[in-house]
């Protein structure tokens, strides 16, 4: 099965090489045949050139468009290159590539979308304030999209060929995480969760979705519902 690991990256020059080296090493250890696609979302540092020797393919956005746009670019690439599965994987080093085989196993079992949940696995170092915000995000996702998930804002996702073909993301920025659930609902995709291990570091907490950005994400979701 043709598998693509999509790694969206924006100004990750400091960690992208380590993330990709760890990813490749783990894929080899777990005997997973997969291509890696880095989507450089208009970084102003050397993210793209640093990533290039460590990845299979590199796509570069001429301007910073946001996480949602970068993921949509990666999924569009997977669609055009007829990949059977793809996994979205954060570039800041917080995800553990050992979780990829678990996601692929679920996809092979017949699920269309597999979400890596931080709340059914080990989540070292997650601040309490972030847990509250993420729980509210889950409630909003349930309210807007009719799907309960334990981690609506997770960046770790597995997609089947059907999901790759049919999911059409519109949001450009962080609200894309909730939009995935809207697409699951709209397309009637078979959805499951797996526990994932997350390494919270000062770097990843600084780079990730801020609690203060939650209001903006909520407004964007409200706007999407009016479309």
């Amino acid at each position: 099965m043709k598998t693509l690991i999509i790694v969206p990256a924006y100004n990750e020059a400091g960690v992208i090489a380590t993330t990709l080296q760890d990813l490749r090493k783990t894929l080899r250890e777990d005997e997973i045949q997969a291509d890696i696609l880095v989507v450089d979302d208009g970084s102003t540092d050397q993210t793209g050139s640093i990533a290039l020797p460590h990845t299979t393919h590199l796509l570069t956005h001429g301007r910073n468009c946001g996480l949602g746009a970068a993921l949509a670019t990666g999924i569009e690439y997977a669609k055009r290159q007829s990949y059977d599965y793809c996994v979205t994987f954060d570039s800041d080093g917080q995800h553990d590539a050992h979780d990829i085989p678990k996601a692929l196993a679920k996809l092979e079992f017949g699920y269309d979308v597999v979400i890596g949940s931080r709340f059914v696995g080990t989540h070292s170092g997650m601040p309490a304030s972030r847990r509250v915000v993420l729980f509210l995000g889950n409630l909003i996702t349930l309210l807007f999209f009719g799907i309960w998930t334990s981690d609506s804002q997770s960046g770790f996702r597995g997609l089947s060929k059907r999901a790759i073909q049919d999911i059409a993301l519109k949001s450009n920025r962080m609200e894309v995480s909730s939009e995935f659930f809207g697409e699951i609902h709209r397309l009637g995709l078979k959805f499951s969760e797996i526990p994932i291990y997350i390494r919270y570091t000062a770097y990843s907490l600084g780079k990730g979705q801020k609690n203060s950005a939650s209001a903006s994400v909520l407004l964007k979701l409200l706007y999407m519902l009016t479309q």
Partner: protein
Amino acid sequence: MSLLLPVQIILLVFVLFAASRAVLQFRGGTIRFGALSFWLLIWAVALLAIFYPEETTRIARILGIGRGVDIVVYSSIAILFYLVFRLHVYLENIRTEISQLIREVSLKQVKKGGKK
């Protein structure tokens, strides 16, 4: 019509200026006929309200609002909210189109990495 009040003169100049901008934008091809008609209608209603304020009071009383100026303020706020929403939709659509353009360009320039 009795002598114009200073405020009526100021508002008249502003309305004529705004209407002329709409016509110029239409001539320049920036806005379509529908948008031109909408704005000319808005400014025509504004002119009526400026020169016949007692009529706005009559309409206000029919609607259960005390003063004519209140109905002008209320309806202006409602129209402004709607226009801000339209503007927001427009900007979001432009942002999405720019992202699609950037996506297509990037998909045509795939770089092969060092690892297979």
